[in-house]
């Protein structure tokens, strides 16, 4: 069951001897026009493969009709996707994984974005996409759910953000804040 991505990671050197376990493989956010807005890869792939996968998936998902299943089979992976307003959130998992919980992971991520930005829209993500990444990293780490409590995730992000506002202050002061 762990072989599924083997076919994809042909040329990534020695690291492909590592067995892949039932975790998320990658997450993509793209707009209705097919523009990529966020990408996070939890398996080592070459740039060329990433581009190929993205292109194929965006096409496939955009072609789906609204009432259809949120899941689809793609190569030997399962794709779970959901559309929120003009953005598609799309995750790849392995065949044995639970599709529904992945759908809820997407939803929780959207909730987090929503809470952070205050009714999030596509533009928020375009202009602050590094923030969107920070939130994602706080929620999912290495393809596994790290923290499920909404409060804790946002607390961690806000703590780090505090520093940005005082970015110009000297470093020693920053360290004081970090220590608290």
């Amino acid at each position, binding site marked *: 069951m762990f072989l599924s991505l083997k076919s994809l990671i042909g040329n990534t050197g020695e690291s492909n001897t590592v067995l892949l376990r039932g975790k998320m493989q990658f997450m993509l956010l793209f707009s209705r026009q097919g523009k990529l807005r966020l990408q996070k890869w939890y398996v080592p792939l070459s740039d060329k493969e990433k581009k190929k996968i993205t292109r194929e998936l965006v096409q496939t998902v955009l072609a789906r009709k609204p009432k259809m299943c949120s899941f689809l*089979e793609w190569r030997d992976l399962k794709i779970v996707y959901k559309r929120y307003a003009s953005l598609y959130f799309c995750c790849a998992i392995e065949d044995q994984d639970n599709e529904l919980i992945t759908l809820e992971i997407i939803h929780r991520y959207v909730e987090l974005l929503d809470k952070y930005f205050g009714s999030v829209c596509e533009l928020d993500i375009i202009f602050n996409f590094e923030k969107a990444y920070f939130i994602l990293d706080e929620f999912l780490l290495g393809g596994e759910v790290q923290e499920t409590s909404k409060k804790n995730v946002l607390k961690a992000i806000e703590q780090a953000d505090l520093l940005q506002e005082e970015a110009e202050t000297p470093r020693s002061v920053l360290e004081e804040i970090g*220590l608290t």
Partner: protein
Amino acid sequence: MEKTLSALPSLLSLEPGAKLAAASRLGALVRGITELASKQKQMRECLVRLIYCEMLGYEASFGYIHAIKLAQQGSLMEKRVGYLAVSLFLNESHQLLLLLVNTVLKDLQSTNLLEVCMALTVASQLFPPEMIPAVLPLVEEKLQHSKEIIRRKAVLALHKFYLIAPNQVQHIHDKFRKALCDRDPGVMAASLHIYLLLIKENPDGYKDLTGSFVTILKQVVGGKLAVDFNYHSVPAPWLQIQLLRILRLLGKDDPVTSEQMYDVLDESLRRAEINHNITYAILFECIQTVYTVHPKADLMEKAATCNGKFILSPKNNLKYLGLKALTYVIQQDLNLVLQHQMTIIECLDHSDPIIKRVTLELLYRITNAQNVTVIVQKLLEYLRESKDEYVTISLVGKVAELAEKYAPNNEWFVQTMNAVFAVGGDMIPSDIPSNFLRLLAEGFDDEVEDKQLRLYAVNSYLALLEKDQVQYPQRFLQVMSWVLGEYSYLKTETKPEDIIEKLHCLLGKCSVSSETKAWILSAITKLFRLTLNVKVLPEVLQSYGNSMDSCLRQCSFELKQLVENREIMNTVLPLDASCDDIVVDASLSFLDGFVAEALGHGAAPYKPHHQRQEEKLSQEKVLNFEPYGLAFVTSPQASSVTGRQSPAGLSIGSEISCNSTEAGIKDSNSLKLDGVKKVWGKEGYLRKRESKVEALASLGSESETTTDTSSKTERTATVSEEEQEKQQLASSLFVGLGSNNLVSLMGKPQSSTQKVWRKSKIVEGQNGHEKAMNAQKTIVPHPPQIPNLMDNVGERCSLFQESKAMPLRKTSSDSAEVPTEQPAQGYDRSWTPSNNLKTIKAMPSASKEPFSGLFADGNFDIIQPANCRSAFEAHDQISGLAPSLPEEFAQHAHSKLELLCANENIALFSCKIWKEDCLLIPLFITNRSSVEVHNATVNFALTDELQTSESTDFPFPVVQSQTTVKCHLCLQMVNPCTQVLLTGHLTYQLESSHCTQEEFTLILFLIDFIRPLKLTTEEFGHLWLSLSNDVKQNLSFAPNAPEALSSALHTLQKELKLHIVDIIGTEGIIACQLLPSTPCLLHCRFHGGILSVWLRSPCSVLPDCMLYECQKVMQNVQL
């Protein structure tokens, strides 16, 4: 250059037309980055833009180094962006990652929480495996940190380390337990990720934790967790799911452990009432767990009801999951399918292809002999619509499998396979056509029926070729041409010339690949034995005699020679003999004269491909040290002059697709049985073919079971026509699934109706083997490529007479002299099973050989498979029959003989013998019953890590009552790993009853394969410099005495069988090698109570593994 993020949109709005502008902007960015290298704040923004550019698809690798720099030098905010950019840009194997290690190390030691957080976050996403020892102590330390977020991230970083280098983290299992008991639920949840991995690998090691997991789940389900963790008022769903998965692994096949979890599973099923996706997600896991653990009736009933909710739901997502759960569940309970048969029928025509697909998967699993026609028809329909390559490959395999297993009659079988070949096109995996051809060639016991089948196939292919404009896939054409070449003689009413003419037409088509042309040419060659009319011959010879393709050219030369000489034709290509044994002179001895002549003229001796490769590689390195060059031992075809192999039992085959001959020889050497095992399922043993299945077309005549099961649906008084159709389909699909004739999963044959399409090879013992082996080979028209040496031979017609002995299937005079000298050479050179079948008389008691001191801690474990529970209870009674180790083995270091598995009829003993060049696993099979045991076969399944130069199958045609036979397996380890399971099974027949199968498992450790490597200090030095993979680690070592080093080294030497090369002052050098010939060098330095060990080896994994072994030894010493 704009300095704020607000400038981004302009960069984003790049239209494809404005490509030039984009390129120039990128250029500006490149310049900006180099200029701004010192100004970190601006650098941060540049990097953010760079991330965006890369997402848009532009090449951004020029900025990678700046991301690393920023992470290293920036202040907190810059660092954050730097780390983010690194984690997005690089992957684990990227070289720049090494530059990050120091930064991570520094930040882990920082007093600032945020810096520590960032370092841990990046480490749990990507980290170079070889540098893990550097940060490991720091990360471990963080497990005790006062902040939960740090502890949580540290656990996840360890999770990552475990994934990429499990050996490095093995010593901190206790700390995982501490994390599991952490007072913070977040940390505990994170530790479950690690436990899921650990338990997946070794469920038995963690049974003691079942209670804890159950308690945690109980508390979570009971809502004892903080409200924070609720998700849509469901308490911590992710945690619940993770726990359910762990419990599933723990409870599988274990009634005692399962008993502990029934309550909480029941509770989970009950609690999940709210109609929300998240509860369904939990329910889905619950259902799977209930059906995986040891079954409990009322729980399963509840789970089934829940699953019903899924399937009947109008939401497609839930329907899909319900069907998916059903595919898991039917392994336990086939009746569930019957409950939902009408829904399944509806889903078959669902508008969403994925629901269709999962329904078909379900159908595939419920196929039996009665519903196979309908199900295969549905599968083929889907296949024709689907364009996806992955779907096609997997479905085509399934259809072929079902057709071979359950085909009701010849016509249907051939038609179905034709459809498979046509639909599968060239994506079809190569084993499908070869299995099909083997089936045709080997046939069944019934001569008449075989002929019918072959004739039917010939007829159908002739009909297909009749259609001119249709293009068939290459594989299909190959199958056609082989069948036509081999079996056209059965069709007496068609003249062979006509068939030749047809094939010749095919040859002319440009859509036909040259590989296929070779198949067709050989078919034509075979057809010429049926006719004397050689009208088309000149034309064929003209077009292919000068072909650029050497394979085609060779085929046409053969054709010419054979047609000219009918006598040879008849010996070389006898009718209907594709299954007969062939002996080929694999050593090509008839070429010796030619080779000698060439050598005499000053030609360089031939070197096989891999040898040339190795030489090339070693030239690239600075130094070449080859004292351990055992690598050639396994290559029998080394050089035709020096390393002459006897052809005993060795005949040349080649893969169905034009592989090189070298590969072909390898195949025939090692009896490729792995593929075979898969195909020749258990059903094959039974050989029941009493009655043929009635044509299933008449749906009206439903069997009793069908009426029984579908009665529910028939209750509706008035049914529309459409409904009726569906019901008919249902009755044909679900026939034979009723509870009173329950078919186990994958349709184990109903003996009365099942016609067995595959027969066993193993059942016939050694003969079966050979036959199978040859059949596999002879499907191939010719080994399409000539070995290097013969390339120029083929062109000279004068030598051609000799060379054809090689490519052609024959037992003719050319090689006759060789087989006669086989036996003498064969015995000492290659190990043949029959040679080792010395039957030893049972010894009165197990010999108590002095147990080798090196392995006194008895690392010879035995895993007891579930099905031989009684083995140990029976141990006392059998010990009277236990064999003793023969002298030839006993002289080596060895472990005690242990019982592997036993029942009332047969007992299996084994031990480990640490020979110098291999790990020898002898196997003693004792027949404890009062009758003879027939056709006993021991088969070892080797994992990738292990290799043997010999066969892994040991057949014993007869084992006398109350006697012991033995065989042995020489193992070497190719891919180092700390431990590996050697599994195998023994099949045998008592009197004439069915085959029985016993499985057994042995744990082999790395140190079983480690041998001392005798080197001088000087040699050590040279070798040390030439090796590149190294690992360094400090081992704490308490006694600070002057002799501490030498005592430590001697402990290592004793425990791990190393060779101490030299000890100079506080430093020591040790050498060992992993069988077959991978050296591993250790350099130890003792300083202030710390023993720092530095390992080097040409293999990247070996130092890690050895380090782990050393750690273990040193820990034991301290205890």
